[in-house]
């Protein structure tokens, strides 16, 4: 950034180096400073730090660039977003982050400062905007997942899954482990492993067979008992829609809880976690109207059955009445949370991704019942068309033949996959994610045009 810096001298001042009225975010004039210092009975702002031991005082300048004017700041970031520095690729990659369409209205409403610049809605009387949309968000997530209760959202899909593992563990009285499907996204599994390791939850990996959970292996583990919970993904990491018939019953037999990590966008069509008999649904909500932004911020969702409401981590908004008899909304069941329960809380989480939940809420309000189905149909159709065409080139074959998939799928390539992907990048395409030496995973959303699908096939026909 050296080429954009302007060199300025530190401002002279009578008040110990803090000049008045010198910067757009600081309103203090020299006069203000004098009056305020006088009221405080000190002569310099540094006197206000007289209680800081000398040895802990920071006495030099930070090794940071000089301040940038707004003009220079814009130039700096424009340079960083020039095609040379940051390339916008036509995206056929998924693996937990999807390039979906969002109506223009979503971003516009998100930027309203009343939503953007407010804090957690602790003061219900002046936070009905936030509380109200979270209540709508919870209703929508409950509806999509087919479960009774949703929390107000969490950091991301991976941490929400890790929270579900801890929830299963604390819910079980005499369990010895939590079972995790190998078809759960490895990135999510790493987070689950990290949390479980430190929290002291023994995990048992249930292997995959032909790209899907090995049901025999699962049954063997379950028959040994002591299972606090089973965690699976739908569609799974490889895009396959798995058949979880009968899993819930077996998990429930030993009072364990069944957790499905789902892609909420696909739930317009797919059988819901509730219908599969899951007790908890978690996942990443980015696919519901949130831009990819290099993977964050997204939003983790978590829904559960009524029975588990008090075991659920995270904030929850409930409906109530005010003293004028009006329907209103308020943060509720706070006795589960860290500011009351401290080390006995259901989790240490003390925020949600509120604004990201607002993306989801506005997106779903616009797309509605039909729109989300249309998105799912288009994505499904695009993915299957692309798959057909790539196989027809003769260079690809399905990694997991005969397994149903939704809008993401794995193909084995008969050449040098790295070279192929590099070439696609040269042509402006992100042709998927490499998930094995020869295996490419591609995702198609409603954003991908027939022309783009056609062109990608030509590029990959090598």
């Amino acid at each position, binding site marked *: 950034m050296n080429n954009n810096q302007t060199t300025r001298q530190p401002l002279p001042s009578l008040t110990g180096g803090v000049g008045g009225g010198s910067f757009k975010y600081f309103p203090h004039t020299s006069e203000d400073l004098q009056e305020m210092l006088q009221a405080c009975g000190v002569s310099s702002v540094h006197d206000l730090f007289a209680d800081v031991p000398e040895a802990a005082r920071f006495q030099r300048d930070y090794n940071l660039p000089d301040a940038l004017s707004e003009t220079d700041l814009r130039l700096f970031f424009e340079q960083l977003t020039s095609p040379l520095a940051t390339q916008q690729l036509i995206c056929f990659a998924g693996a937990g982050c999807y390039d979906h369409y969002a109506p223009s209205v979503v971003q516009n409403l998100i930027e309203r400062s009343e939503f953007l610049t407010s804090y957690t809605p602790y003061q219900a009387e002046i936070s009905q905007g936030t509380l109200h949309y979270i209540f709508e968000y919870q209703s929508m997530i409950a509806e999509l997942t087919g479960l009774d209760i949703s929390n107000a959202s969490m950091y991301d899909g991976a941490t929400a899954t890790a929270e579900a593992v801890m929830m299963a563990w604390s819910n079980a009285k005499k369990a010895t482990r939590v079972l995790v499907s190998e078809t759960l996204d490895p990135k999510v599994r790493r987070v689950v492993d990290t949390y479980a390791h430190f929290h002291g939850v023994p995990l048992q990996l249930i292997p995959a067979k032909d790209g899907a959970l090995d049901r025999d292996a699962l049954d063997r583990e379950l028959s040994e008992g002591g299972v606090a919970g089973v965690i699976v993904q739908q569609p799974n990491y490889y895009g396959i829609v798995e058949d979880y018939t009968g899993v819930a019953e077996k998990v429930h037999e030993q009072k364990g809880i069944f957790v499905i990590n789902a892609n909420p966008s696909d739930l317009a069509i797919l059988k819901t976690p509730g219908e599969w008999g899951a007790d908890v649904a978690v996942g990443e909500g980015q696919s519901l109207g949130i831009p990819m932004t290099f993977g964050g911020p997204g939003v983790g969702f978590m829904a559960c059955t009524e029975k588990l409401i*008090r075991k659920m981590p995270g904030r929850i908004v409930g409906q109530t009445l005010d003293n004028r008899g009006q329907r209103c909304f308020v943060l509720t069941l*706070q*006795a*589960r949370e860290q500011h*009351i*329960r401290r080390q*006995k809380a259901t989790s240490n989480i003390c925020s949600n991704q509120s604004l990201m939940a607002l993306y989801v809420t506005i997106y779903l309000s616009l797309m509605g019942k039909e729109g989300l189905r249309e998105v799912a149909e288009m994505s499904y159709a695009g993915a299957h068309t692309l798959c057909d065409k790539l196989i027809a080139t003769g260079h690809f074959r399905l990694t997991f033949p005969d397994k149903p998939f939704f809008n993401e799928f794995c193909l084995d390539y008969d050449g040098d996959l790295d070279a192929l992907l590099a070439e696609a990048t040269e042509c402006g395409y992100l042709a998927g994610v490499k998930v094995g030496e020869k295996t490419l995973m591609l995702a198609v959303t409603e954003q991908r045009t027939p022309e783009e699908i056609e062109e990608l096939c030509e590029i990959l026909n090598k």
Partner: protein
Amino acid sequence: MATFESGLRYSESHEYVRVEGEFGYIGISDYAQHALGNVVYVDMPEVDDEVTAGEEFGAVESVKAASDLIAPVSGTVVEVNEALEDEPELLNKDAFANWIIKVQLSDPAELDNLMDVEAYKAHCEN
């Protein structure tokens, strides 16, 4: 003002036991329900669970507070007060009439470690 009932044994953490034969009815004192405020939820163990003196067996929640229930005596849960599931506010109405669990005492000698009403009253005043 909190009321105190004689004839019960009290713990420092404000639970009481009413002994009837080999059984003990465990609840929270009127002083405790006052301190908690409006009770919105009572987390109770299940029948046949074991409780151990000095260890938690559940929790009482109000809107702004949560308090673990500490077993004053050890024993096996033979009954839980199911009325509290739908009407947790019964604890506010009458904490002594609305016990939380009934246990079969496994060591009646433990009762000697608990306070009588006078000692408990003094404990609360401190």
